[in-house]
């Protein structure tokens, strides 16, 4: 058997290629001029510029948080390029006009930007560095009154919706990275599902960072009007580079009365090499607000990034609202993850479910951090939390930081946790039946994650299982 280190060196990140394309970037560094420049490039209305500047001024007075259980070299915010876009992208990119090089990039990533070739029933918005290169099925969805477009386009075409909901779930002053995002966000997706409509296909966004020294600050806003429902998928990759790249996104979900939003992520940013050099710093704020009888469900499979810091949360504002969080977080090599969720119960009889599966291998460090908060008016609120950790090898770490704050005596909160180790005996058992070590681990790990994978849409679940296999390659010596 090869040593773990050896196998890790040979580990392939097949999404690590760079697209050679001419880009237009703003000068590096951050100041009001840069923000005005980004806003001008995007031909934004005045309210948007003022919103950005206000966020920036707030950010200047904030401090980078250091409470997460992760460590990384200091970030120099003046060394980052805040906007970069391929020169050939049309301002209102339709799929027919996509640069062949970009088309090729997405084909290589398994995302053909061609409606005939696309997965049946999935509409895609493709984001490359700071801009959207195209959105499929836009017209067909538009005929139903569904808006699915890049965020930039939404700002220009639907300013009233953007102005009404932007920052309504994650205020610009929410936290350091959310404030930074609010000041400089480049692109992302915007979704609006009209009253009573069930979106007939899954919507998805594929994020790609290409340029070096560029941060990606995407902003996604999904609004499901009363009684509407939608399932949204997010995927992401980046080239291998030996410097850290910052990805500070904000995702806001608004589920009005009786609406349902299901948000699934397979996060596969470049994780850095075996010595922890390079990789994406994935500092993300994701939050949803569920009004009366509404439901928001987060499912995430986090296998990439050097550092992951994110807590997809639900504010259960309405009576009978439902929040769910299903997570698989894998760390290998020198990866670090501090992830979990917050369920804030405000409405009566609001319910939440948290299922978190953390897998630590190599020298990875994995922390679950979760808050269940029941406010005084949330009579009859219920939460169930299950938090399982699995260790592979003996140089990795798993930590759990559950916070429970209950202010209503009729609420019920359950928390279950377990830690297990893939042992020699388990692997030998599988090997004795004819399976090799990699297959044995993959089978054991997939079994461990089953409860989460079953929440993912079909194509995504298959992708996630494969990804898990790749991420854990060589994790046992």
């Amino acid at each position, binding site marked *: 058997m090869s040593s773990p280190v050896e196998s890790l060196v040979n580990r392939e990140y097949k999404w690590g290629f760079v697209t050679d394309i001419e880009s237009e970037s703003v000068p590096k560094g951050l100041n009001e001029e840069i923000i005005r420049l980004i806003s001008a490039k995007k031909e934004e209305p005045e309210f948007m510029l003022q919103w950005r500047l206000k966020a920036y001024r707030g950010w200047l007075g904030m401090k980078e948080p250091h409470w997460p259980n992760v460590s990384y070299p200091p970030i120099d915010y003046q060394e980052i390029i805040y906007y970069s876009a391929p020169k050939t992208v049309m301002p209102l990119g339709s799929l027919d006009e996509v640069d062949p090089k970009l088309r090729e990039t997405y084909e290589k990533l398994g995302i053909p930007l061609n409606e005939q070739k696309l997965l049946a029933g999935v509409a895609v918005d493709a984001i490359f560095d700071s801009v959207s290169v195209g959105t499929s099925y836009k017209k067909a969805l538009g005929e139903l009154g569904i808006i699915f477009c890049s965020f930039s386009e939404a700002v220009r075409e639907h300013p009233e919706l953007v102005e009404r909901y932007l920052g309504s779930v994650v205020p610009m002053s929410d936290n350091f990275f959310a404030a930074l995002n609010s000041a400089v966000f480049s692109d992302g997706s915007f979704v609006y599902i009209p009253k009573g409509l069930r979106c007939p296909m899954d919507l998805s966004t594929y994020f790609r960072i290409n340029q070096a020294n560029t941060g990606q600050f995407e902003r996604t806003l999904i609004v499901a009007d009363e009684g509407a429902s939608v399932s949204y998928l997010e995927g992401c990759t980046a080239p291998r580079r030996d410097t850290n790249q910052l990805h500070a996104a904000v995702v806001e979900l608004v589920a009005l009365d009786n609406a349902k939003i299901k948000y699934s992520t397979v996060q596969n940013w470049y994780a850095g090499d075996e010595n922890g050099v390079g990789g994406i710093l994935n500092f993300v704020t994701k939050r949803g607000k569920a009004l009366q009888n509404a439901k928001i469900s987060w499912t995430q499979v986090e296998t990439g990034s050097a550092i992951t810091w994110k807590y997809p949360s639900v504010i259960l504002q309405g009576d009978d609202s439902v929040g769910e969080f299903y997570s698989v977080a894998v760390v290998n090599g020198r990866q670090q993850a501090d992830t979990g969720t917050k369920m804030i119960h405000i409405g009566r009889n609001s319910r939440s479910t948290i299922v978190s599966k953390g897998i630590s291998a190599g020298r990875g460090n994995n922390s679950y951090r979760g808050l269940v908060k029941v406010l005084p008016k949330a009579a009859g609120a219920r939460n169930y939390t299950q938090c399982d950790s699995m260790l592979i090898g003996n140089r990795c770490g798993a930590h759990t930081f559950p916070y429970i704050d209950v202010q209503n005596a009729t609420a019920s909160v359950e928390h279950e946790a377990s830690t297990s180790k893939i042992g020699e005996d388990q692997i030998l058992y*599988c*090997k004795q039946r004819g399976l090799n070590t990699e297959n044995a681990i993959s089978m054991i790990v997939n079994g461990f994650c089953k409860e989460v994978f079953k929440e993912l849409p079909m194509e995504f679940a298959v992708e996630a299982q494969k990804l898990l296999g790749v991420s854990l390659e060589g994790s046992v010596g």
Partner: protein
Amino acid sequence: MALLEISDLCASASGKEILRGVDLTVNSAEIHAIMGPNGSGKSTLAQVLVGHPAYVVTRGSVVYDGQDLLDMEPEVRAQAGVFLAFQYPVEIPGVTNAYFLRAAYNEIRKSKGLEEVDPMDFLDLLEEKLKLVEWGPEIMQRAVNAGFSGGEKKRNEILQMAVLEPRLAILDETDSGLDIDALRIVADGVNALKRPENATIIVTHYQRLLNYIVPDFVHVLSAGRIVRSGGKELALELEAKGYEWLTGGAEAA
């Protein structure tokens, strides 16, 4: 040619010598029982034969079907037809019995250059094998050994053996913790799988199982060596006289 030829096998775990020169020859169509008191090295012998990484072979050789068994990875041994019914089968939560067993079955087929079997065909094949252990199909949808009783785990081992059809089956204390009905089911399963080209090694502490599975040879292991070999009557003699008769209290030390 013998199916299995063990010569002067010595093995240790955590620096402690457990096997101290085991010699054993097993031919096709034979059933061998290896008996002995606790701590004599019976289970270690079984674990060494399947390549458990916790044991280090310090001397000796094992030739299986003309190949150097000790040089083979555990999965290669399994693919070559060596099967161990574990004394303590592990649990694999979230993985169904059906999925696990089909994966194993297909790995073994692939190693022989045969095509993989799809889930539907595999279910047909299972139906026959399940009858052998008197189980319905619902057991296949449960996670591997998770929440199984001791007896169910042992029965599951026999089911796996029936599906994988090994040439050399090693049963490590398969009778321990079984009630009389489960014991009969396990024994019937083993007997039904007997073939002229196969062989079985039964590792056991008690003579009880040998009432159901009649061995051709009985060996007594003591302090890491085979101290006596004989026919099936040796097991009865042991039952009557106790192990001290042969070991002279060597295990007590």
